[in-house]
């Protein structure tokens, strides 16, 4: 679920969880890696059973009974180990995963792996830039409103970000589309209504890059606005947690001006716990990308998910679920490891 706007408890959790046992950096790294492997194993097992409870013959489901000769169905059945007991099926499933054999997409009549590989870049670009902008803007807003808690800036920021948080991302996207692409009244639309490039523009050229940015502007803005609240509120409450600390009183007693106390002492400490939360949030940003890509017809994994579930194309959906999960798990691991480097307390 999209994270609670105020999440100090979760912040604490992360630190406590890391601090409990096994002192030393190596075991921290090892522990985080093992935890990620555990999550991954859970996803794999879940995916395996999901596949088994689908009604009907899995081999037929994979091929959807059409235009596939019997020998090929038999071959598929064998490659998925469907003639073996459950344990054998699971081994076959793992073997297929490792070799990138995820079945054939009903809709595209191509291996799922290839379909997904073709569509991965737009999503990475959208989620990457969207997260980056939301993080930078959100943290800055959070710092300013947390430092002057209860002030006018704080009230306006918290109100605005909470309202944005309450919007379904795709609806925000539709509103931006209506305002800036379709145009309202006498104001013409200035952004494209969808896709990633205009016809006839060379992708590699300077013009191509500008064209891409022009197409990405609205979807990225939607994603960034929709997820601004999480970053702002987490940074805000993290900074408020620091405000009462003794070291800030010391810094003030030294005669440091307020802005310096904030910039050099409070913010660096308050930033630490936000690292893991930014990564945890990625799961929601990815979810948001699914509907936003649909609204803006961006040919990435999100639009692919929409196309797949309208069929419904089971093999493709499962492949997408795996790819999304693996991506988010990897990003979380990376954030945990970075956190461990930044904050020695969680290591020991």
């Amino acid at each position: 679920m999209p994270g609670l706007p105020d999440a100090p408890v979760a912040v604490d959790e992360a630190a406590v969880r890391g601090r409990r046992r096994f002192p030393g950096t190596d075991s921290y790294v090892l522990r985080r890696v093992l935890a990620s492997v555990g999550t991954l194993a859970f996803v794999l097992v879940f995916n395996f059973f999901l596949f088994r409870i689908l009604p009907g013959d899995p081999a037929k489901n994979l091929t959807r009974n059409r235009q596939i000769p019997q020998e090929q169905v038999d071959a598929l059945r064998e490659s998925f180990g469907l003639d073996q007991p459950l344990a054998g099926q699971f081994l076959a499933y793992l073997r297929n995963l490792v070799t990138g054999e995820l079945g054939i997409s009903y809709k595209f009549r191509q291996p799922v792996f290839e379909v997904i590989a073709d569509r991965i870049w737009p999503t990475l670009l959208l989620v990457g830039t969207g997260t980056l902008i939301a993080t930078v803007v959100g943290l800055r807003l959070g710092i300013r409103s947390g430092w002057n808690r209860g002030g006018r800036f704080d009230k306006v920021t918290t109100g605005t970000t909470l309202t944005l948080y309450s919007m379904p991302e795709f609806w925000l996207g539709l509103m931006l589309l209506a305002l800036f692409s379709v145009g309202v009244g006498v104001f013409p639309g200035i952004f494209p209504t969808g896709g990633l490039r205009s016809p006839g523009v060379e992708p590699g050229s300077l013009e191509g890059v500008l064209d891409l940015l022009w197409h990405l502007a609205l979807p990225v803005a939607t994603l960034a606005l929709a997820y601004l609240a999480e970053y702002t509120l987490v940074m805000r409450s993290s900074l408020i947690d620091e405000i009462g600390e003794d070291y800030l009183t010391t810094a003030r007693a030294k005669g440091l001006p307020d802005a310096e106390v904030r910039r050099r002492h409070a913010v660096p400490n308050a930033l630490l716990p936000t690292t893991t939360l930014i990564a945890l949030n990625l799961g929601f940003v990815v979810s948001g990308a699914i509907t936003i890509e649909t609204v803006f017809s961006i040919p990435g994994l999100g639009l692919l998910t929409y196309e797949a579930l309208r069929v419904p194309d089971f093999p493709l959906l499962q492949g997408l679920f795996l790819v999304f999960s693996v991506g988010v798990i990897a990003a979380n691991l990376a954030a945990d490891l970075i956190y461990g480097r930044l904050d020695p307390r969680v290591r020991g």
Partner: protein
Amino acid sequence: MNADLGAQPAVPRAPSRRAIARARRRESASRVWREFRRSRSGMFGLAVLITVVLLALLAPLLADAQGLDVTQATGDPLSPPTSGYPLGTDEAGRSVLTLLLWGARISLFVGFLATLISMVIGTLVGICAGHFRGWGGGLLDRFTDWFLVIPYLPLAIVLATVLGRSLFNVALVIGVTSWAGTARIIRAQTLAVSSRPYLERARVLGAGNWHQMSRHILPNVSPLIFANTTLTVAVAILAETTLSFLGLGDPLSVSWGSMLDSAFTVGALSTGSWWYIVPPGLCVVVVVLAFTLIGRTLEQILNPRLRER
């Protein structure tokens, strides 16, 4: 106190333990309400919420259910607001206002049902994970972590596709994918409560696990559960809107999300039919914001960690 003793015999005697507990609980509830009333955003949220729930409950009186039937639609398709249709019509000629009022019932119902499922799982897992140390609790911790990390929408989508499209399934899918945050918070609070002396006393006196969890831990974490429930309703309604927009909702009932789905599929944006796209979205924003504001205010009052600030 006297009111509590109404059922007791008239002979003066010490109030029962239950009565004391009940009186104490009532007193703390009224203290919370006094503090809640002072929060402007909380009261705003509550007022909005009461209005929307009333409108949803009164929908049968305000708009005839026949207005939902596509075959009996009386208006022109996608016509702009007129006096007969204050919010225009949809692609089948039904009044958007009627759909909106009846849609509120479905959106709220699914939101509440999903929240119930989510809170039951989250509370159970959270209390057990905090209470049972050792491998059992460790496993529950891991389980919570898994659900916290796995992106919710892809998980919800695969589950919903496999389970099929019905109101209950949508609620189930949302409940199953949204409990992890609650479990985390409840677990932390359970840990804090477990280390208090009176629980040690209960243990020494021979209280079993069930007694400890139901009589001592649950009452102590229930304020947090309460605050978290309102926040979860907000999340659940957003999730319902998203799943219905993707076409995974119940095909037979109209919710705000399914209205947005139809509006998007018939191209209401390019035809400029704003009355079909703006109102359902606005309703979602207003209701979700109301629940979020109430939840945050309750959290400020009830969460001991936030209180200090």
